[in-house]
């Protein structure tokens, strides 16, 4: 009994009459990594907000380390020893590691506002050593990698004597190597008996590091499982509430003429001598580790960055692309990796976002025809189901999956011959993922050539006709569907042990 650190019971929370959480329980034991899973909107973040004092529950009780507690605000959560590592980290870049960790509680000379620098550094050094953190206490935080910043947040949490750490999508911005480091840190926390509540959409991570899994759906507790006794398929059907016969609905499409051919495309130092081609109806998967140069190739191909050399041919004809508008004119569409930064104008409506790349098609001279615009949008929405209240709604208010569908709709409205998808399902819940896979499959069947860059190996393996593996800015290998396993892709990507 004493190994239960946290017990939440009957937690209920409504927003405007809609139940975000309905009698949910969560039990976390000492030294375990506990996954909290569910689709977007299932109630995971509300539950965690309640635990970290950001939101007050309507009903329910929380028992922490054996005693009943009220968590009135984030400070109260911190005082109890509950720390949340946020998706978006916000350490202060101009301050040092030590200053960030002890921000607001620096050791001072008694009775003065002056900081005891020696002591500050010493305390920091001890903490850093404990976690084998490579940078020193006086390193500026701005110079650290994302993974190091994250680790810094964790160390900071530990320095507050955290007894429970919540990690919300901690690997979303990390490279493969950095993920390893994070997992080592989590292991260390486990050994110290500090439990971690781990929220992630990535199945592989869930299965490699968590001990138990709590699944939520539509604000209700669906079940708790030991990770060891669970299969991916079973977990997914718990999350979506229906059996998913196939997550990857890849259908065989008729492969036609070559649409795109790239010869010797180079942009130093990011990638060099990249050559490949895609045909109508074909899905070309591009796998590789983060930083392998995959997105950079696509950016150069699309005219966002300037290539140093190489040729691009569309339907056998050499084309020059100096700006994305050239690429669009030649029938290339690019669903970028980062929806919020590169894909959408969040402050504008669904309608305006959908037609942004194809305004000329629905305009007479300089004037946009609202009727042509409405017709184009209606047409598109017949094929893509976007959950929304109205077309004039800001895209900011949509969920990740629906935002992604708006981006895809925007590009389909340009009537492309080639569709480039960069991490098309990142940060999207399982249900929306399956829907996007179905869409991709259908587009290929309709004769579109598709290039799909993805770091999720099951997705690459499940969807592609052909797979290119990139590493360190070069193409390391090319494989046909069914010819290669995840391990082989990784091996190929790492390429003879040369790891940066």
């Amino acid at each position, binding site marked *: 009994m004493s190994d239960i650190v946290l017990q939440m019971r009957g937690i209920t929370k409504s927003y405007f009459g809609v139940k975000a959480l309905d009698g949910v329980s969560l039990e976390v034991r000492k030294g375990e990594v506990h996954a909290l899973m569910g689709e977007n909107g299932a109630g995971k973040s509300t539950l965690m907000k309640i635990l970290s004092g950001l939101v007050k529950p309507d009903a329910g009780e929380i028992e922490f380390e054996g005693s009943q507690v009220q968590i009135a605000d984030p400070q109260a959560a911190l005082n109890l020893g509950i720390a949340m590592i946020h998706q978006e980290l916000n350490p202060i870049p101009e301050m040092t590691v030590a200053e960030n960790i002890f921000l607001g509680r620096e050791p001072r000379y008694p009775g003065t506002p002056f900081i005891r620098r020696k002591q500050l550094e010493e305390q920091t050094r001890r903490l850093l050593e404990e976690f084998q953190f490579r940078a020193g206490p006086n390193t500026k935080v701005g110079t650290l990698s994302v993974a190091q910043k994250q680790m810094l947040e964790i160390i900071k949490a530990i320095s507050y004597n955290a007894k429970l750490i919540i990690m919300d999508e901690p690997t979303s911005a990390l490279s493969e190597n950095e993920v390893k480091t994070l997992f080592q840190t989590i292991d260390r926390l486990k050994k110290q008996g500090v439990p971690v509540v781990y929220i992630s959409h990535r199945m592989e991570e869930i299965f490699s590091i968590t001990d138990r899994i709590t699944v939520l759906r539509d604000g209700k507790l669906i079940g708790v499982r030991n990770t060891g006794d669970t299969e991916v398929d079973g977990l997914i059907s718990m999350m979506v509430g229906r059996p998913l016969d196939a997550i990857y609905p890849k259908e065989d499409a008729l492969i036609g003429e070559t649409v795109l051919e790239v010869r010797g495309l180079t942009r130093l130092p990011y990638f060099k001598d990249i050559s490949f081609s895609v045909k109508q109806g074909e899905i070309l998967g591009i796998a590789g580790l983060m930083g392998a140069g995959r997105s950079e190739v696509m950016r150069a191909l699309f005219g966002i960055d300037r290539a140093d050399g190489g040729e691009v041919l569309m339907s056998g004809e050499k084309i020059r692309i100096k700006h*994305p*508008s050239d690429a669009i004119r030649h029938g290339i569409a690019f669903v970028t990796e980062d929806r919020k*930064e590169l*894909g959408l104008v969040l*402050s*504008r409506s669904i309608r*305006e976002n959908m037609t942004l790349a194809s305004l000329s098609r629905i305009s007479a001279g*300089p004037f946009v025809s609202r009727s042509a615009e409405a017709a184009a949008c209606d047409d598109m929405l017949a094929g893509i189901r976007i959950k929304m209240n109205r077309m004039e709604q800001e895209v900011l208010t949509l969920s990740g999956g629906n935002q992604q569908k708006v981006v895809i709709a925007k590009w389909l409205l340009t009537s492309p011959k080639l569709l480039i998808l960069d991490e098309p399902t990142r940060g999207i819940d399982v249900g929306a993922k399956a829907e996007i896979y179905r869409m991709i499959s259908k587009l290929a069947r309709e004769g579109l050539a598709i290039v799909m860059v993805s770091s999720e190996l099951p997705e690459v393996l499940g969807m592609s006709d052909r797979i290119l593996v990139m590493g360190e800015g070069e193409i390391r290998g090319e494989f046909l569907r069914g010819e290669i396993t995840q391990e082989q892709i990784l091996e190929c990507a790492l390429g003879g042990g040369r790891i940066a």
Partner: protein
Amino acid sequence: MMRKYGLIAILLGAVVILSLVSDTFLTVTNLMNVLRQVSINGILAVGMTFIILTAGIDLSIGSLMAVAAVIATSIVAHDPGAVGWALLAGVAASGLLGGVSGTMSAKLNVAPFVATLAMMTIARGIALIYTNGRPIVVSSDPFKFLGQGYIGPIPVPVLIFIAVTAVMGIVLYKTKFGRYVYAIGGNENASKISGIRVDRVKIWVYVINGFLAGLAGILLSSRISSGQPNSGMGYELDAIAAVVIGGTSLFGGRGSLLGTIVGVLIIGVINNGLNLLDVSSYWQQIIKGLIIAGAVILDQRAKRN
């Protein structure tokens, strides 16, 4: 939406209160007076709305007004009938200088604040050199008509302001260009990737803003019957204030022309009212500042809900 109506309510509230406390406020003469007074700031604020929607700012418009004014007045000083040429030359000059600011910010990556701050002093210098620092006196009646004339009961500057608003409203809401202005302010990277020539759109926004500043400057010179190289100083602040009161976000991508017009009218009505009530001009400054701060605070609240 709530916000727009809120602003209009503030404007109507001010009108009601002023008509109760002052006998002269709600007369045709005074209302026309108010409209004439706001038309110059109104024209400036329309251009500034475009600039701020792209997440930019233009501090140079006061100086651009002076450049256009001295060029236009120097032409009519030579040939009193050449009003068309005077307008064209003045507006072309200020448009060109606006284009220089736009190019600095779009192509050379100078922050608009800095680029237009530089242009503010450069253009003022140009106006001073062009005139040797002396005002150019205007005696041309057709030129004076622009700022002082009436068509029916309506002052000419008011008609020009209405025409400018109508044309720019069509540009902003009915054309691709208008869409691009909003998109660039909302997310420049996504706009570029969607095939928008972001640099060109931005430069054109500064050129258009330069045109409108020039037009406003020429109207001012016509009204005071002289081309003053020192005219227009501080006018950028009233224009920015009107845009901000009107609810356009300084971060770009959000806002409306209607909001700006209401913002212009609020400033105009309150200025006029305070004058009618004999409030000292010192106090007027404080009251105007409070209104700007209040509008922005309301805006922040509205956003949070």
